């Protein structure tokens, strides 16, 4: 601390920081990007390991053998009653099937009117029924439970999963070793059904869902698994972890899945990508980097990528297991999948405490390798420190008016509060408009323009976004006259600190979102001044604005899942991503849309203001 108490050395330090500010910032930015890309490099990552003792060394022997029966059940389930077909779920059939397997069966009906029609899934007024059966553990006091769910939504045939669920229920019912009740849930309308069930189970109402109260409960749910087998031929199993708002389940759940895949010789993937062993080749590294990037993109968008994602809010560790048919030479039969689930459920049944031993914050470049929060945070830290350095630089400049006085220029008095406050308030009002108007103005828009409700919402959002660019700049002049040199510096200082806080908080909760925003926002916000060529920089700023970030992410995502799209397709996807984001917020309480509309976009507008300062 001698450094700070000595005015000379302090001056030298600040001098150094202001003089070398730009080079340091550039180095930090590059270092951040390189660090991030290095995370996928195998020698820099850690091997996954089971932290939870209760699941580690305890022996579990899988004996499930009625996979064939499950398949024939699936056939019975399919054609006559058309499960998951157009007529909705065969509730009575399911109730009877579960009852005959010795479960306590309950149903829950729910209905939900979407704020605007969901064109991807073609639904607007959703009405459905969840069926769940509780297998009561012998001599257990109904305090703990595990959940296995199989979504059964119209249009996607998940009847194999439902049949496997029933076969497992039958097998589990005859076992004596259960210590936790097991809930078998077949939910209609995928996430909406899960949401209704979870809200019913916990007797909360956070999203305005209408549902009938649950009759049977089984205490606090410890873990949940969701099973989706959409194809008749399953070659591999994919593990989906990304949940609502980028929440992830405890890493031990992924370890558990991986351990059983290894044990049973099942091909397992994450993000649909197999693991490769050649980390030292360029292809190997690219593969790992792609897998990790996919995870980052999925996590950043903050939606729930499977039924499991909604459980995480309730502090229930959950993951989705998805059967995939993509690797020709392999085939996994239903018995093996049943055994895998049996093993996982039995190990979860052995748990003495909630899963808490392993990491909650991680990235997975492959199933057997992980990057913990301690490794990836510096990448973000390097980007965030740029904002702080620029703020420091500005602070030093603002705090040295003496230099100006020497030149004989009469320095105007320091800018009033209004100069800063006006753009801040107006930007945020634009943000509020962006948040509220699209959904509320849809009727009016539909009346006046030849568009559907969904298009109306998305296009209104884009219109407001664009209008925001024209509206607020130079607003401070209305109140405080000519913009001064000092004025924009104060505004930029405020905006930089504001952005740093915003990104910092975001990255703590959802690293991926914070990092992606930082990558695009930091360079332009750090360098913006009113003295730049306006037209050029305006274009650059727009190209690095949050909306374009989403657009880039859409393209990169499509590229990574090996389904590249043309520009027009990409544009359509972009529009649907926006509508999905708004829907996710309304239906499940995803926070990405409000974060972008209410905070990030206004913050970006403040910088836009600086560019057009005069």
């Amino acid at each position, binding site marked *: 601390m001698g450094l700070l108490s000595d005015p000379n050395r302090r001056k030298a330090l600040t001098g150094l920081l202001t003089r070398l500010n730009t080079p340091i910032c550039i180095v930090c930015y590059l270092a951040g990007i390189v660090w991030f890309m290095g995370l996928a490099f195998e020698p820099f990552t850690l091997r996954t390991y089971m932290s939870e003792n209760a699941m580690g060394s305890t022996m579990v022997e899988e004996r499930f053998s009625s996979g064939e029966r499950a398949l024939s059940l699936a056939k019975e389930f399919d054609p006559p009653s058309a499960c998951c077909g157009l007529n909705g779920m065969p509730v009575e059939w399911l109730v009877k099937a579960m009852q005959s397997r010795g479960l306590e069966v309950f149903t829950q009906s729910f209905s939900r009117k979407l704020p605007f029609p969901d064109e991807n899934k073609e639904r607007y007024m959703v009405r459905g029924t969840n069926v769940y059966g509780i297998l*009561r553990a012998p001599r257990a006091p109904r305090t703990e439970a595990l959940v296995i769910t199989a979504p059964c939504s119209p249009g996607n045939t998940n009847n194999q999963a439902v049949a496997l669920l029933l076969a497992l229920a039958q097998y589990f019912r005859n076992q004596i070793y259960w210590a936790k009740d097991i809930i078998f849930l077949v939910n209609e309308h995928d996430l909406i059904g899960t949401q209704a069930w979870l809200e019913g189970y916990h007797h909360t109402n956070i999203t305005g869902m209408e549902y009938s109260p649950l009759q049977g409960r089984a205490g*606090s749910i410890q873990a949940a698994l969701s099973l989706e087998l959409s194809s008749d031929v399953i070659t591999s199993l994919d593990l989906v972890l990304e949940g609502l708002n980028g929440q992830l389940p405890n890493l031990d759940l992924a370890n558990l899945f991986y351990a059983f895949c290894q044990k049973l010789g099942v091909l397992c993937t994450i993000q649909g990508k197999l693991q490769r062993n050649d980390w030292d080749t360029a292809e190997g590294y690219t593969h790992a980097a792609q897998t990790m990037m996919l995870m980052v993109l999925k996590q950043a968008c903050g939606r729930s990528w499977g039924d499991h994602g909604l459980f995480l809010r309730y*502090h229930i560790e959950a993951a989705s297991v998805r059967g995939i048919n993509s690797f020709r030479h392999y085939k996994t039969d239903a018995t093996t999948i049943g055994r895998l689930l049996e093993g996982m459920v039995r190990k979860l049944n052995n748990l003495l405490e909630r899963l808490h031993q392993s990491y909650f914050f991680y990235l997975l470049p492959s199933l057997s390798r992980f990057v913990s929060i301690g490794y990836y945070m510096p990448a973000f830290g390097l980007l965030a420190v740029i904002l702080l350095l620029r703020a420091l630089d500005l602070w030093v400049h603002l705090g040295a008016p003496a230099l100006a006085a020497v030149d004989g220029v009469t320095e105007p008095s320091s800018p009033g509060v209004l100069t800063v406050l006006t753009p801040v308030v107006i930007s945020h009002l634009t943000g509020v408009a962006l948040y509220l108007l699209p959904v509320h103005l849809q009727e009016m828009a539909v009346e006046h323009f030849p568009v559907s409700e969904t298009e109306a919402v998305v296009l209104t959002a884009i219109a407001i976004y664009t209008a925001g660019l024209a509206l607020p700049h130079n607003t401070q002049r209305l109140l405080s006259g000519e913009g001064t040199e000092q004025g924009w510096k104060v505004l930029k200082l405020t905006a930089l600190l504001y952005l740093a806080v915003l990104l910092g908080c975001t990255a703590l909760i959802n690293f991926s979102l914070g990092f992606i925003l930082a990558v695009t926002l930091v360079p332009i916000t750090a360098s913006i001044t009113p003295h730049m060529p306006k037209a050029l920089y305006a274009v650059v700023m727009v190209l690095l604005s949050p909306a374009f970030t989403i657009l880039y992410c859409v393209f990169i995502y499509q590229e990574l899942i090996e389904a590249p799209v043309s520009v027009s397709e990409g544009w359509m996807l972009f529009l649907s991503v926006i509508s999905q984001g708004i829907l996710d917020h309304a239906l499940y309480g995803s926070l990405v849309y409000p974060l972008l509309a209410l905070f990030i976009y206004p913050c970006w507008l403040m910088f836009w203001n600086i560019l057009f300062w005069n």
Partner: protein
Amino acid sequence: MLILSSLLLFILLAAARDEFQEELVIRPLHSGDIYASFQFRTLWDTDFLQEGQKVSHYRLFPKSLGQVLSKFSVRELHISFTQGFWRTMQWGQPFIPSPPGAELWVWFHDTVSDVDGNWKELTNVLSGIFCASLNFIDLTNTVQPSASFKPLGLGNATDHRFLRYATLPREIVCTENLTPWKKLLPCGSKAGLAVLMKSEKLFHSSFHSQAVHIRPICQDEQCSSKAWELRQTLNVVFDLHTSGQGKKEWSLFKMFSRTLTEACPLASSSKVYVDITDNPELFELSPATPLLGQAVVLGDRRTYSVYDLIMPTSSMVLSPCALGDMLRPLLHAERYVAGFGLQTGEIHTVIYNNHPYRAFPVLLMDSVPWYLQLYIHTLTVTSKSRDNKPSYIHYQPAKDRHRPHLLEMLIQLPPHSMTEVTVQFERALLKWTEYTPDPNHGFYVGSSVVSALVPSMVAMRTNFTQDQPLFSSFVPVKEESSYFVRVYTEPLLVNLPTPDFSMPYNVICLTCTVVAVGYGSFYNLLTRTFQVDEPSPPLSKRLANLIRRMRGVPLLT
């Protein structure tokens, strides 16, 4: 010789004054499970609490319990150990209900001055006798219910200062608790019905509950003299689904892997009842018994086949049974925690009155540990979506680390209704030594107790006779039209905010760093006196001064 013979006479007289009965009831349940309920009753017309008289001669009554009764001046003692949860909706009402875990409630004699001290010692002694963790009962989980637990025996003590009630919902019941319990029987597990109690089978079941009830009762109808009754009960529900490979067929041997051969030689009565009320024509009992008994139990008239072991015929019971429609239990309750997050929550207790047209009042008792801080102003009672004002509320707020919340309410249940009692709570942040070794498992909240006089479908027998079966005579019936039922809800498992206990090392490192770097430097900055120091003279000058000092010439400045 005279002394000896009179002593012998005395012993014989004393011996004549105690008796032992044993009984097993088997009831096939509608869910396809088999409910087996053992009851052993020892009656002794002596008085442990009489001044000046020390009871030292024991015959059938276990000495360990007798001594405990007299030492701690216990008027009534009820203790139960239960593993599992009684599924009222599937199984109907049990003969004697009990909550999951351990439950202990004791009425002390009103001469006791230090009730809490006696209670503490008593729990420790019982803990030793039953090999259970009853020593974990302390003031933080003991309550004094004002209305829910009235004495079941003689005497109308209503001053609840002499009552103590505690549950340990987390208690795990196993063979180590069963063995001492069996030892209290006069025949042990050597003869009689207790032969069937093979722990391997008893704990291979859906529900297991063992209990000891001690109370003073009237010896005869006139109640001229008092007798002590010790009732040991054991309730088991066997799951035919898992053990029977789908066949609806059972036998004593299949359930207990033992058969009955003889009664306990010390028993005055030893009977096996098989409930054949539901679809008697579908039952096939072998050997068939000519004896049919009827009993009114829990508001329902049941028919039983009776096997008397004192005059034995044979010992096997075998019967395929079919499922019938079950009478919905008239009273049923459940409980759960609503909400998410680790800050607040809401306890919901739902009580169902399934009676088609009769309303009846119930007493709800909730004992909530102090670390769930109840917001009692948020207490709501609604039935049929209308506010239902309890006619009696007894609430004793908790004191942190000293006593739990106690909430007792008298609620009128409308006919055919669902009544929901909700109360919000905040989760306390415990001191780090107060967490259990497995804090992420959660903390238990004991079952709430719903006690009620439920309107009976058939007239209950109110007169007291010796010859009715034991299982129908536990709770004294005071009026014909209703019977007493106690329903326990499930215990709750609540997660409290838990620190990451693997962190202490990191925390120590971090705090040390913060203290060293942050505090140290600030302290340094704040306490240091700053002064402008003279620039030190150049080296040449210093050298010159050195030489000058040696020469004794005035120094250069």
